[in-house]
């Protein structure tokens, strides 16, 4: 069977599975809808949290980013896992004991303030929307690439599926679908990883092969008879070609530090992650489900850097100095250089899909891969892939972009690292189809979790807790379903017409969570003295500073976005850490000369600090 038939088959089967689960786990009350009835077993909750957390970006783009950045890519690995330690130790058990449904619930009740609740609602909705737009786009792209439907149709199909199970099932439906989606995405990520580990290093375990010797069917060719470890060879290749060393990177240490911190703290402060810890029956279960969640996440997060290094080594080995026109092509170029090494078939396939471009600057017919961009911007191909007239002397697709001064001739889109792996490793068609299904599972599971946060914020925090406190459970459930439906449609619209700033806004989401939610919640639990004035002042200034900094460098003065202009050399991605410090400092200062919180809040704090007496999450 060809790739497309396999993809239809596997994607179809997984979608049917998700919808089947959704129908079986319909929500009957707001409690079902918001927190899955509060009865999710910790292991299942851990798996669902992992699927919720690992987005299309984790699945498709992260390994690619690390592959191109080497050590500098570690910020994502540490940042997106270390946050779970903070979550497990500092937030999850106490929020579970608090026992309401949402993050704005806690902020509003702990600080006895509707203003604080509303600030939290707006921040939760904003963070979730930025994220969800990216997920819907991811769904569209996977559909577009593997099923040959347009990105728009892909987004609409994705919307339909999410709509069905998020609106019907609420948190209950989402949780059990996410368990299934975790299994699909993990299997899809591991199969190619195991094979490529075998081919590059002769061991099936990627985490071990990562530090192992270069051997096996592909590895032997690159080692060229030398006995050398994969990473040593990779560093050597990087040095030879003028790239920054793979294992030590080139970012300033303070920036690496701050980005990692902002991502960790932001992870712990993201509402769609926190909300998951309200779904388990006990405080004890909240602790252990954070452990399970991180374990399940760690399988992918320790495999991804290994895949990144394998793919990078293989890429350089396969393309550098290779002659583009291979002997199978119609008319070989005379006196081809490159010592009989020819460009692999997958390179040409991905060139046809528009993710690779080669500009033969010196006209020698061989690919030269160096540091720097080969030309300005993304490739602007002269004609369609099938158009022979739009091809150059070696048969490559011509691009209209102005070439750059440097020696590099190759443009490679980062996202192909995961997508192209099965092809590079020569795996059967069903594996390629599996990767497509995995990407979809990752995108859909994250989108559903985020949509739930949005609908809960509207129906629970805004309607029930602020505007219409007397609303009946039935009406509130209806409102939750309606707002989920509206949110899906908005997200779909953003997926089809993505605002140009989606990538920038993701950095923003973490900075926002780091400089607002995390300090407010942490101080709400760990400080008896922290009061309304302190928390609000801290959130406003922390958030204000972070927003201003990001907007200045990412929207208003893009041309100044360079290390020498940054505050202490900290990039906009890492500035959330500074915002967080400002939040803590301002809050402590303001709280010290305003009056301490009321006796009720005192008791609330006492109560959340001990596990004893935790009922399941409740509505009032």
């Amino acid at each position, binding site marked *: 069977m060809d790739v497309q038939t396999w993809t239809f088959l596997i994607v179809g089967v997984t979608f049917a599975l998700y919808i089947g689960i959704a129908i079986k786990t319909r929500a009957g009350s707001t409690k079902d809808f918001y927190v899955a009835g509060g009865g999710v077993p910790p292991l299942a909750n851990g798996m669902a949290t992992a699927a919720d957390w690992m987005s299309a970006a984790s699945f498709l783009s992260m390994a690619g980013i690390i592959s191109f950045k080497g050590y500098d890519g570690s910020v994502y690995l*540490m940042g997106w*896992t270390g946050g779970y330690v903070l979550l497990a130790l500092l937030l999850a058990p106490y929020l579970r004991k608090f026992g309401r449904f949402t993050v704005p619930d806690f902020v509003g009740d702990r600080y006895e303030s509707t203003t604080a609740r509303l600030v939290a609602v707006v921040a939760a909705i904003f963070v979730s929307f930025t994220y969800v737009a990216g997920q819907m786009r991811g769904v569209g792209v996977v559909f577009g690439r593997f099923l040959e439907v347009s990105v728009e149709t892909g987004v609409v199909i994705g919307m339909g599926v999410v709509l069905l199970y998020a609106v019907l099932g609420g948190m209950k439906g989402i949780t059990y679908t996410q368990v299934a989606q975790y299994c699909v995405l993990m299997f899809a990520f591991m199969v190619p990883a195991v094979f490529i580990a075998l081919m590059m290093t002769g061991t099936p375990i990627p985490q071990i092969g990562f530090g192992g010797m270069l051997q096996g069917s592909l590895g032997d060719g690159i080692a060229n008879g030398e006995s050398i*470890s994969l990473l040593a060879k990779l560093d050597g290749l990087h040095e030879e070609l003028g790239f920054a060393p793979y294992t030590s990177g080139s970012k300033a240490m303070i920036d690496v530090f701050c980005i*990692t911190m902002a991502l960790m703290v932001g992870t712990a402060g993201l509402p769609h992650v926190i909300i998951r810890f309200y779904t388990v029956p006990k405080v*004890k279960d909240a602790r252990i489900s954070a452990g399970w969640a*991180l374990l399940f996440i760690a399988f992918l997060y320790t495999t991804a850097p290994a895949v990144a290094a394998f793919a990078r080594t293989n890429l350089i080995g396969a393309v550098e100095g290779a002659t583009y026109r291979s002997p199978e092509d119609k008319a070989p170029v005379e006196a081809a250089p490159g010592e009989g090494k020819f460009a692999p078939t997958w390179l040409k396939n991905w060139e046809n899909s528009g993710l690779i471009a080669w500009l033969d600057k010196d006209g020698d017919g061989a690919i030269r891969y160096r540091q720097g961009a080969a030309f300005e911007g993304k490739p602007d191909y002269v004609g369609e892939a099938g158009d022979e007239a739009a091809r150059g002397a070696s048969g490559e697709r011509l691009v209209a972009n102005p070439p750059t001064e440097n020696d590099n001739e190759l443009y490679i889109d980062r996202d192909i690292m995961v997508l192209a792996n099965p092809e590079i490793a020569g795996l059967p068609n069903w594996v390629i189809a599996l990767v497509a299904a995995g990407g979809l599972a990752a995108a859909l599971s994250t989108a559903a979790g985020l949509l739930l946060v949005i609908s809960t914020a509207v129906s629970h925090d805004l309607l029930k807790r602020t505007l219409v406190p007397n609303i009946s459970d039935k009406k509130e459930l209806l409102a939750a379903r309606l707002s989920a439906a509206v949110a899906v449609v908005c997200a779909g619209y953003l997926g089809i017409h993505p605002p140009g700033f989606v990538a920038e806004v993701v950095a923003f989401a973490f900075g926002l969570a780091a400089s607002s939610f995390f300090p407010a919640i942490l101080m709400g639990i760990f400080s008896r003295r922290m009061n309304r004035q302190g928390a609000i002042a801290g959130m406003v200034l922390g958030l204000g500073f972070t927003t201003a900094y990001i907007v200045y460098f990412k929207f208003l003065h893009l041309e100044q976005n360079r290390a020498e202009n940054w505050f202490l050399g900290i990039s906009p991605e890492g500035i959330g850490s500074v915002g967080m410090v400002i939040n803590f400092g301002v809050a402590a200062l303001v709280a010290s000369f305003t009056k301490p919180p009321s006796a009720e809040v005192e008791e609330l704090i006492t109560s959340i*600090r001990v596990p004893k007496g935790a*009922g*399941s999450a409740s509505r009032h």
Partner: protein
Amino acid sequence: MTESPSRGEDADGSSGGDPTEHLSSEETATAASYWRANVRLLLVLLSIWFSVSFGCGILLAPKLNAYTLPGTGFPLGFWFAQQGSIYAFVILIFVYVVLMNRMDRRFGVQED
């Protein structure tokens, strides 16, 4: 260390996290020393969290990269940044869970 069976286990859970419930003075004292023990444990675990990631994975990484993880080709600082810190995080949470559950029972504040 006495159980109060009426608290917090009713069907809709509405009295569960209810902040208006009152603790006796003995319970308050237990809660305070439980909290101090809890914070001590957190500080120990978080300093490990900080050392493996920000310490070995970032601040000391250039120095540690002079060595390799024994038996492998990993430069040590790089290994901490891309592998070791993640393993440590997982272990930290499970250690925390075991120690906290034990501590809950020692202070008699467990849920059941």
